[in-house]
């Protein structure tokens, strides 16, 4: 008993199933009492094709479903919540507006770059709102509309995302631009921007956000560009619309009124067939 041991080739033959029957029997009998040989045979079997398959199955069974079902990362949730505007073309157009203003100021030396950017800034979140919610802007609108988040709640989340992206970028950009001295200040557009965004949501409860935002953006741009007489006039025009405590108070009041109207109209977003 002690003289006979399982050789390496014999273990291989046994593992691959090619060992003759008497040999296999002696081996099985022997490894019941001989530890080193049992280990040798076990190693050979584990290395065989069948052993590999069994190891794989064992790993799968032991792992269960847990490793694959990784919890959703919060960054992914942020991206989802941002909605279609921040994921898509709107972000590019925001970059284009800022890049264009910086280029005009430093590349070409155009003095009116900052008033121009200030004049355009309130329209940027409006475009984001237009592209955030509704049948024409959101490819997933039909299925998201049937969820508890559907309606005003989702629209507000996405509007917040649009503002969270555009406000800091535009603020930094206008601070970077050379100051042509005098009003308006770099932050003067913030209240008008907020008021126009809320107005787009409030008007959007009747017409859908796309139409509302387009109408308001056009109205804003026309109001600013109406004189169409070059940079100094543009600066003056922008100043007239946004500068000074009176103008700012007016915009703040408008924002409050629109927010109130939106609250009253909240249920109308639950099914907007026109959006």
């Amino acid at each position, binding site marked *: 008993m002690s003289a006979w041991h399982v050789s390496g080739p014999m273990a291989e033959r046994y593992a691959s199933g090619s060992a003759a029957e008497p040999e296999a029997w002696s081996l099985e009998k022997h490894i019941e009492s001989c530890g080193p040989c049992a280990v040798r045979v076990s190693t050979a079997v584990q290395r065989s094709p069948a052993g590999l398959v069994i190891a794989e199955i064992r790993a799968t069974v032991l792992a269960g479903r847990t490793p694959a079902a990784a*919890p959703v990362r919060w960054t*992914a949730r942020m991206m989802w919540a941002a909605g279609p505007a921040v994921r898509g073309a709107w972000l590019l157009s925001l970059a284009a507006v800022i890049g264009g203003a910086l280029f005009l100021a430093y590349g070409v030396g155009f003095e009116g770059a900052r008033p121009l950017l200030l004049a355009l800034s309130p329209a940027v979140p409006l475009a984001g709102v237009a592209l955030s919610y509704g049948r024409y802007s959101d490819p*997933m609108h039909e*299925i998201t509309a*049937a969820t508890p988040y*559907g309606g005003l709640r989702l629209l507000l989340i996405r509007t917040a995302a649009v503002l969270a992206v555009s406000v800091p970028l535009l603020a930094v950009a206008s601070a970077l631009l050379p100051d042509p001295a005098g009003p308006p200040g770099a932050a003067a557009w913030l209240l008008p921007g907020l008021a126009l965004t809320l107005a787009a949501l409030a008007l959007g409860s009747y017409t859908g956000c796309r139409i509302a935002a387009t109408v308001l953006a056009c109205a804003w741009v026309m109001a600013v560009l109406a004189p169409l007489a070059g940079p100094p006039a543009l600066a003056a025009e922008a100043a007239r619309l946004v500068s000074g405590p009176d103008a700012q108070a007016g915009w703040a009041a408008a924002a409050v009124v629109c927010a109130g109207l939106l609250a009253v109209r909240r249920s109308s977003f639950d099914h907007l067939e026109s959006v």
Partner: protein
Amino acid sequence: MTTAENAPEAVRVTGLTVRHRRTVALDAVDLDFGTGVHGLLGPNGAGKTSLIRVLATVAPASGGRVELLGHDASAHRDRPLIRRRLGYLPQEFGYYPGFTVREFVSYMAWLKEMPAPSVADAVESAVDRVGLMDRIDAKVKTLSGGMVRRVGIAQAIVNEPELLLLDEPTAGLDPEQRVEFRALLRDVGRTSTVIVSTHLVEDVAAACEQVTLIESGRVAYRGTTAELTRLGEASPDEGASPIERGYTAALRSHRGTTTGRDQRTRSSWGTGAQR
């Protein structure tokens, strides 16, 4: 589960009217649906999609009362309560280009306000049920039309809805997938109310216990699948299978009772529409 105690019927519709501008899509329809799989049959343009969209709380009713899962669907406050327990697959739906199957279904689970810890497992189980486990991390845009439809089914069932609404769910599925899908429907229908709109009579024969036939915005026939089949056996018609003949017979008898004038032209369309 709670609805089973309070109100046995998940859907109660009385006098439901839906108008799209001047056309009447649904004309004072009274319907109720309880636990089980219900087939919604009818020619194209009969009002099936209009009914499904109202039941999905996506479209408003022009008139009448809609009670879903024990709540009034027109009440703004109750709508999230309904929508949390709802699954909806529209005829067509979009997705964001970057989404993988897992992200798409997780996003929908998030919008349905599922508790965060259960989302990962629920997503995997839903994707597994539609047989897409091997493609769970593939981009949705790389999938075939039939697979995208199955992703749509997965998002509809991810929250284990008590009311599942499917609009033409078998469009784009090959015969084998259809067979599997019907088995899934029967499975879900054991505990939930499932309403399947289709113009394929064979879908109804294979998966549904109850049939509702809609024609020109009115309920033309209601009964069990077996009853509709018997109706077909009694009718000496040219339809391929008894249930198809039953469909045609029920449709014709409805048309005979409502309008006699344009019966001939419409029934020639009617027999074609079921194919």
